[in-house]
């Protein structure tokens, strides 16, 4: 409820500025909020690392391109479809690799991005290596400029993702996930259905990433394999929760807003390569120095003061 209220304030606040750039930049930041939260449902809660965020994101985006070519649908429906496609792929990947050691899942997701990119490059119907154009309408009824509509859609998705993450944390599911993260063998021994829980997490996480990707072709207008599978999605969706803090839903949100805005500024003022370097260095520094992220630092600080 509070989240929805905050979201409404954000939207109308952005409208007051009435500058399209705010919506363009805001869309990207919100997209990262969704990706980071989705990554954290698997990575932060169960402790399984997904390096293939870009692959799930691109699956959603290419599902949209495919449908756009055959039968155009409204964006909310496309999001649902993108989510289903990515969720199924997440489930399949999890089923094949999660029965083994955790590292295999991580490696498989890393390779998944390369393979899906190969498939897309070889698949002419969705544009192949040349890419595909998506012509988006300029205006939309009731809301106004199309970019505002996209912004609103992504805002709703971000609220949805955060609500799901928060819900998981407070439910039995969340405790189940935490037992897997802390000691999977002990969890299994005391009757936690670990495989089923892990599969739920991969499916949910994959689906949310796909949903974040589904409106992307409309946002960018021209979708190339290299932009849909961009390494920045993979690295950001890991770096943001790691920097924000992985144990609660607030962490990825903080990380995404901080890093996302920083990158929006850095891309404009310096260069996009330098800004990726900053993200990479921050990731390495945080995992070494502050393993629990900003949330962990703040908690440690307040606890230290209380003593």
């Amino acid at each position, binding site marked *: 409820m509070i989240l929805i209220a905050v979201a409404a304030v954000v939207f109308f606040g952005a409208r007051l500025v009435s500058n399209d750039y705010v919506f363009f930049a805001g869309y990207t930041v919100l997209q990262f909020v969704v990706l980071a939260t989705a990554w954290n449902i698997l990575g932060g809660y169960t402790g399984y*690392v997904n390096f293939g965020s870009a692959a799930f994101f691109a699956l959603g985006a290419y599902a949209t391109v495919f449908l756009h070519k055959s039968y155009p649908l409204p964006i909310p429906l496309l999001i649902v479809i993108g989510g289903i496609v990515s969720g199924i792929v997440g489930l399949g990947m999890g089923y094949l690799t999660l029965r083994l050691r955790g590292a*295999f899942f991580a490696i498989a997701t890393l*390779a998944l991005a390369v*393979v899906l*990119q*190969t498939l897309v490059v070889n698949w002419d119907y969705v544009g192949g290596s040349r890419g595909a154009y998506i012509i988006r309408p300029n205006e939309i009824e009731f809301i106004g400029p199309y970019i505002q509509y996209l912004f609103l859609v992504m805002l709703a998705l971000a609220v949805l993702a955060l609500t799901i993450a928060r819900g998981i944390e407070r439910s039995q599911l969340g405790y189940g996930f935490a037992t897997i*993260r802390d000691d999977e063998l002990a969890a299994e021994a005391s009757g936690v259905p670990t495989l089923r829980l892990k599969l739920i997490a991969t499916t949910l996480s994959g689906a949310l990433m796909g949903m974040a990707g589904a409106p992307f072709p409309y946002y960018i207008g021209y979708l190339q394999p290299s932009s849909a599978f961009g390494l920045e999605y993979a690295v950001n969706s890991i770096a943001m929760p790691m920097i924000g803090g992985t144990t609660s839903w607030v962490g990825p949100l903080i990380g995404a807003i901080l890093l996302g805005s920083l990158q929006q500024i850095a891309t404009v003022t310096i260069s996009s390569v330098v800004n990726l*370097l900053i993200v990479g260095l921050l990731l390495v520094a945080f*995992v*070494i120095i502050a393993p629990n992220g900003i949330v962990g630092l703040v908690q440690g600080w307040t606890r230290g003061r209380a003593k």
Partner: protein
Amino acid sequence: MSASWQERGFGGKEVDLSFDLLINALIAGILLGGFYAAVTIGVSISFGILDIVNIAHPAFIILGSYIAYIVNARLGIDPIAISIIMLPVFYLLGAGIYQIYYESFERRGQEALRGLSFFFGLLFVTEVMLILVFGVDYRYVEAAYIGPSWRIGVVDLPLRMLVPCIAALVLFAALELYLSYTFIGRAIAAVAQDQLALRLMGASPIRIKRIAFGISIATAAVAGALLIIIQPVEPSVGREYIGRVFAICVLGGLGSLPGTVIGAMLLGIIESFTATFYGPSWAPAVAFGVLLLTLAFRPAGLLGR
């Protein structure tokens, strides 16, 4: 991108007979597989023996390629010779990284999530730094054996592939001898099995692991030089090797060096056939298929324990 060597592997000639095509694809696959063995052997040590999931290994290989490129372009030294000179540097780099890894993650029992993210960060930072310094242009080296090829009957043996394959097999033989016959080599094999027994023998497991990880990164110097002999290199080429390297590792059986070579040869042959009969752009997907099939049907690999 990675297609260039496969196309040139046949010398650009039209081969009519399907038997010729078959035998040449097989030979090309074996040569390619030998090179893959050099790329994988470091991961076979770090992931297979030490249980350190070093996904940044391909980034160090590309780093090795770029060092070979710089020295070769400036001084004209043979790339393989450069890589041998660079071995101690890469060894120290590896030992240093292991020290950080041990202090920050292994000792605290956090290798699963944060350790993996650490290596992912290293992979990413190395790639982006190379892009910043060298741009995304393809770089290549000069050496006498890069152009010509031997021809035995219908079989084409491009020296550009043959030399790396032989160098890789020499590297493999040296490592296998080292691991089987020296005290430290045997201790490295023991670290995977029983750390307590190793401690009782008077060897520190941490020191042994540091040495082993140093060796594993040192092999990246050689693999990088071989890579830039085989194909022109740009910073993101390494990503294509992540899937390959781990597919070979798992296919061969974790921790088994002979298994690694067999797995590498198999993958090389499968990729070569795929490239010949379906087109080179499909080759990157092959490794992933092999990885998933192995994980699904025989997770222990061919020569796995």
